[in-house]
């Protein structure tokens, strides 16, 4: 080890840095890390959330996770909802970004129009769509009536084959604008010279898109796809207001299961164990994203 390195290490405690960082460090540790670490502990207990004595029950919660039908069902619902949202949110967001980038008039207006649903709270968006989906008085069935397509009328949220998809539609509507902004930024970073050069060389619009735009926005794609998967895992408000996990358990996702067992059934120990599984999935997804991003950087 050389001397400068040693000197840097031996450098005395940096009081200024400490003073600047301490408040944030303290709050972050106290209100995120401490409860996270204690949730690891609670996941091994049968804590009910109220009583002061917490009983350690070993791996029982995790055993239940891997054997109970209810967890399996919630896992299945979460995967369906999350994958559905991520695929459509990204395709639609990319399409919207391309449209906004190429439309001749009103670029700013359209960008705002597609972004506006992002501003609306989960609860409010859930309520608006719940009413639009309503069997007797909703927009969807009214439009079908007017088009003479009565046969297609549905109890959109009550039909258990459709519930998750219908919730997914709300989330895609609310989220696509966010990812559009990210795609748009990366589209606009594509150098105009490159595109003109290809144009001069006689590349068709599709060839230009495929060979120039796609490789250059693939970083944004990886980020957006991971973000939408993680956000899909965390969906709560819309389910709460639209279906409360029903009908039956058809729209009960991991987060919703966690909430229900924790607050309605007094099993917060089990609820935290479900939360640990959620964190595990998020860490795996993030790791995959990092790998993807890094492998492409090497190629470039």
């Amino acid at each position, binding site marked *: 080890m050389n001397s400068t390195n040693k000197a840097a290490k031996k450098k005395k405690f940096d009081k200024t840095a400490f003073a600047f960082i301490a408040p944030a460090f303290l709050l972050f540790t*106290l*209100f995120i890390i401490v409860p996270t670490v204690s949730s690891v502990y609670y996941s091994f207990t049968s*804590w009910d959330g109220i009583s002061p004595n917490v009983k350690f029950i070993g791996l029982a919660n995790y055993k239940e996770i891997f054997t109970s039908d209810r967890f399996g069902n919630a896992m299945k619902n979460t995967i369906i909802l999350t994958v559905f949202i991520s695929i459509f949110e990204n395709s639609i967001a990319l399409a*919207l970004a391309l449209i906004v980038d190429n439309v*001749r*008039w009103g670029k700013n207006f359209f960008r705002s129009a597609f972004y506006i649903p992002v501003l609306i709270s989960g609860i409010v968006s859930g309520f608006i769509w719940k*009413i639009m989906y309503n069997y007797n008085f909703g*927009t969807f069935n*009214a439009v079908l009536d007017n088009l003479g397509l009565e046969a297609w009328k549905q109890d959109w949220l009550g039909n258990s084959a459709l519930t998750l998809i219908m919730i997914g539609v709300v989330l895609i509507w609310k989220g696509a604008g966010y990812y559009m902004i990210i795609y748009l930024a990366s589209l606009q970073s594509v150098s105009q010279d490159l595109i003109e050069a290809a144009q001069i060389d006689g590349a068709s619009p599709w060839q230009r898109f495929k060979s120039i735009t796609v490789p250059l926005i693939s970083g944004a794609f990886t980020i957006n796809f991971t973000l939408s998967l993680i956000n899909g895992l965390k969906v709560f408000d819309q389910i709460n207001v639209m279906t409360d996990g029903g009908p039956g358990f058809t729209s009960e996702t991991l987060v919703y299961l966690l909430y229900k067992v924790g607050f309605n059934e007094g099993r917060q120990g089990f609820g935290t164990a479900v939360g640990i599984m959620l964190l595990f999935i998020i860490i795996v997804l993030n790791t995959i994203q990092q790998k993807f991003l890094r492998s492409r950087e090497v190629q470039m």
Partner: protein
Amino acid sequence: MRKAQKKVKPSTFVLFAVTVILAFLFLYPVFFALMSAFKSNGDILKSPISFPKSLYIQNFKDLFAQSDFMTAIIHSLFLTVVSEVLIVFIVPMAAYGIERRQSRATALTYTYFLAGMMIPFHLYMFPLFKEMKMLHLFGNMAGPIVSYIAGSIAFGTLLYCSFLKGIPLEIEEAAMIDGCTPFQTFWKVTFPLLGPCTGSMVILNGLGIWNDYLMPYLVLPSGKAKTITVEIAGFVGQYTARWDIVFAGTVISIVPALIIFCMFQKYFVKGITAGAAKG
């Protein structure tokens, strides 16, 4: 020299028409809520897709008469404003400490904060509430506020650190030579230059707090109005037959966010793209 007017290709018109239709579809649910808020309950049920006949404001009168919505509005505003003020005081300082005082300790702190971005709120909420009860932060505004600040640190530090890299050190050095303490240098010299970054962070965080549901629902004392979002969620179960009132509430929730968006659009865009570029 004036360029000859280029002939507009038909495909340009097709694309424009498609865009208009898509924009209509995206905005329709918002229009639907706005229109329904100004229709009587009977009209909402009879003809969900028609325009309101006149400017009908009975829904808003009923909303304030039948519930304590005013308190909910004040609570939402209070939580958003107080949290934001404290966030703007705490987060940029931390980022400054990390970025300008590079050492192994500050690098570790940065990683520690960023790791926090992965932790979902739902995982730690049960132990968090228990901790809040111990610290007497449960059942009052302080609980959500400290939690919002803690939750803003990861993303905020990331945003400010990447922004600070683009600010030349020379200005700060000059201030130091003139006898400013690091604290004065930061607040008087550097912080004003971070305006756009602060704008992005305040706006994106503020929207999250304004729209948040679970935290105020679970932490604020029951039996009284909590926040706008919580009240609306409560109405959905309670006033199953009075959609008009709920729609009036949704408009009160949406309109402030819309106004802020129209005024500060560029900060939304900057914040989202900066977050994605590093996240």
